[in-house]
């Protein structure tokens, strides 16, 4: 016992390596970090029944994996939170090609009804932000929409005064899916009180310019 303690003290003071201590034979090093963060993580670890060492290692492992995959941890965690919000908003993640085929078939047979469904889904999705209160509801909406559109090549939103412009470019969209997604965006904009002024929709490309309208669904937002 004394030997272990002596070894531990030597390690802490020298900042060196320690082998065969505690959890397995993994070689460890010490590092310095903000005390407040470590205290909070120690609480979290205790709640979960982990050691602080295990939790900190898990965090760093995830951070390294994220960086190696070309995304930083902050961005990944933001996406993760947005994905969870998408789930709460009633979205499912479907194989892309399957979804486009389904959209093509439905559009061909029931164009009016299916466009209406997508439009209403857009209103419903945006209403969550409009009615959420607190913070910048538009910015939250824009950020989450960007996550939902993770499969598109270009997504730009410009908002200036009473005007908003949305541009989407995705060569993989089918013709029908492009029109349906445009209906979804129209629904979103209507929920925020915008009325379409310009609308250009071609396969894989959507451009909408809208203006804050009188009597919009969320006038004054």
């Amino acid at each position, binding site marked *: 016992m004394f030997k272990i303690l002596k070894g531990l003290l030597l390690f802490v003071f020298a900042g060196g390596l320690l082998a065969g201590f505690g959890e397995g034979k993994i070689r460890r090093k010490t590092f310095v970090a903000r005390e407040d963060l470590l205290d909070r993580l120690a609480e979290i670890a205790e709640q979960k029944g982990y050691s602080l060492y295990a939790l900190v290692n898990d965090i760093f492992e995830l951070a390294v994996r994220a960086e190696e995959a070309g995304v930083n941890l902050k961005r990944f965690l933001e*996406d993760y939170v947005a994905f969870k919000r998408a789930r709460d908003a009633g979205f499912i993640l479907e194989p*892309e090609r*399957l979804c486009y085929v389904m959209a093509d078939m439905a559009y061909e047979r029931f164009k009016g009804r299916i466009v209406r469904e997508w439009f209403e889904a857009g209103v419903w999705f945006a209403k969550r932000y409009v009615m959420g209160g607190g913070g910048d509801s538009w910015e939250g909406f824009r950020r989450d929409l960007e996550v939902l559109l993770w499969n598109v090549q270009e997504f730009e939103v410009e908002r200036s005064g009473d005007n908003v412009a949305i541009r989407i470019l995705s060569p993989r969209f089918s013709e029908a899916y492009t029109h349906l997604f445009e209906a979804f965006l129209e629904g979103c904009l209507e929920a925020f009180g915008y009325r379409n002024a310009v609308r250009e929709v071609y396969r894989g490309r959507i451009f909408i310019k809208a203006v804050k309208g009188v009597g919009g669904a969320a006038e004054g937002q």
Partner: protein
Amino acid sequence: MGLRKGSKKLVYVSEDILEAIAEVCRRKGVAVGKFIEDALGQAVRLERIGCDLEEAARFFEIIKAQRVLGGVFTPQEVFNFMVEAVYEAKREELLARCFESGRLYGRYMRERFNNPAEALKSFLEVSRWDLSEVNVASENGVTRLRCVSTVLGSEDTELLAKFIEGAVNGFGYKVSKVDIIRGLIIIEFKQV
């Protein structure tokens, strides 16, 4: 509710992970201290908003797969509506598309993961939030995958089952039994 900044503390970390961090930081030209502090800060933030690091880690691999193979977010109500709208007239074509789509995912999982059946389970849990339970169990060389949902219609259930059959086929495994009723899928398969 910010955390008090100021004093520092020593903590242990595995040497292998620190070396990996040092390598990432070298490549990116970032100080190791900043990387470490950012990572810890993000983890605290994640927990504070009620998200789970373990789930995030699992999610990471699956989302990477979805990025490669192409996943699209669809409002579930709209998806269900589309299925119902075309199912009757295009049932066979839809089932064939689901099988093919599943086979593509299955092949990818076979290449990327040591245990493709577990990967499929995670994939379904992460992507199909309409499933309330996904379970994989193996016994005597036979793997049984069970999906339960209280919201899936009979058409959606059949299409999802076909997707899973396709995925199993993509693993290179053989499906030995399929049981489907509305909201419940049980598929048994074994390695050929």
